[in-house]
């Protein structure tokens, strides 16, 4: 399991080569589910970034434009569009966040299956053979957890912000 190259560590921060080696090792021992998880994380973060972009770059200007409109009718139309856009991709993001731990669980199951295959073939005498199966079982779980936690942090923050903005817009239109 350990790479042959001895990893030199200078101080607290390991150098880039060490990091990359450990990352490669991580992916190799994590199995295929980990790669799938990486793609899911990619999609999730893409959507989250788009939301952040919308929240910081697009939304304030749109809100100001909406405020500048004279007629109440036009303002209502605009505010409806805005409220819809606030919630854009929220269900998808929620789904992806929910999927992450489940995929981790899938990795656990596949890793366990592999482990049992190894055990049925070779017995429990050699722990090193079992170690790969155990790694496949545990690493995707951890990755799924991490992705879900980080995604959930940002997502709840965005959701809260969206809720506030919706109330704000409702106040703006009822005047």
């Amino acid at each position, binding site marked *: 399991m350990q790479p042959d190259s001895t*990893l030199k*560590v200078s*101080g*607290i921060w*390991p150098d880039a080569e*060490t*990091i990359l080696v*450990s*990352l490669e*090792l*991580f*992916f190799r021992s994590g199995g295929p589910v980990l790669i799938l998880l*990486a793609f899911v*994380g*990619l*999609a*999730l*973060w*893409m959507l*989250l*970034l*788009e939301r952040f*972009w*919308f929240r910081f770059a697009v939304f304030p200007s749109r809100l100001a434009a909406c405020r500048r409109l004279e007629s109440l009718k036009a303002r209502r139309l605009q505010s409806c569009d805005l409220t819809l*856009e606030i919630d*854009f*991709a929220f269900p998808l993001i929620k789904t992806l966040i929910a999927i992450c731990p489940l995929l981790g669980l899938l990795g656990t199951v596949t890793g366990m299956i592999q482990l049992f295959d190894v055990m049925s073939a070779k017995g429990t005498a050699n722990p090193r053979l079992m170690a790969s199966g155990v790694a496949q079982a545990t*690493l995707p779980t*951890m*990755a799924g957890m*991490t*992705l879900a936690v*980080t995604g959930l942090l940002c997502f709840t923050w965005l959701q809260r912000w969206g809720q506030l903005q919706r109330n704000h817009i409702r106040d703006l239109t009822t005047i």
Partner: protein
Amino acid sequence: MILLRQTSKLSLFLLTSTGIVFILFLFMSQLVDSQVTTNLEPDAKISLQLHRMRFDSEIQTRERQKPEPPELEDVTEQQDLVAPPKQTLKLGVPDVAAPNVPSNINLALDLGSLDGQLAGLSMDTTPSIEFELTMAPVTRVNPMYPLKAKRRRIEGKVVVEFIVDEEGRVEKESLKFIESTPPGFFESNVKRAILRWRFNPLVKGGQATPFRTRQTLEFKMQS
């Protein structure tokens, strides 16, 4: 829909998200990677010297002095022409000095013929077994000089009487010490040695018969 509208931004989001996911996975791999990072100061020198310790010393040759073999003088007991013990038989025969006796004289005594005369004597020799003093052992084992005597530089003489059976072996039960000066030093060693002696059996009329014999063993220090 909006994503499609923002295709210009899409690549940017993709790049940044890959960066973020990459960092996340790096973090995870670092969590998993159980590299023991030892923070060594550069001036801290750890030197392990691995070499075999050699304990060479001068070869000490032990000087062993060979134990001096005790001089064994196998003197065939000088007997009067009467059966032992001499003191009891007052036959008036003068004592003959030992060294004058030629060794090839057959001193066989037929005790059976003397049986009637010797009835009054306390003789524990059975008349059937006759005395044979000329029989020399085929194999003789010299007894060890007893350490106790050697340390005290004691010399001595032991006279043993025993019966040799048909096969030429010394009978253990018959072994008697006629004389031992000084007593208590040489007997056990003599017994141990004598029991390993072998004789030619006495042949009488084509048949091996047991006989009684005596041996005198002298222990002398070589000064």
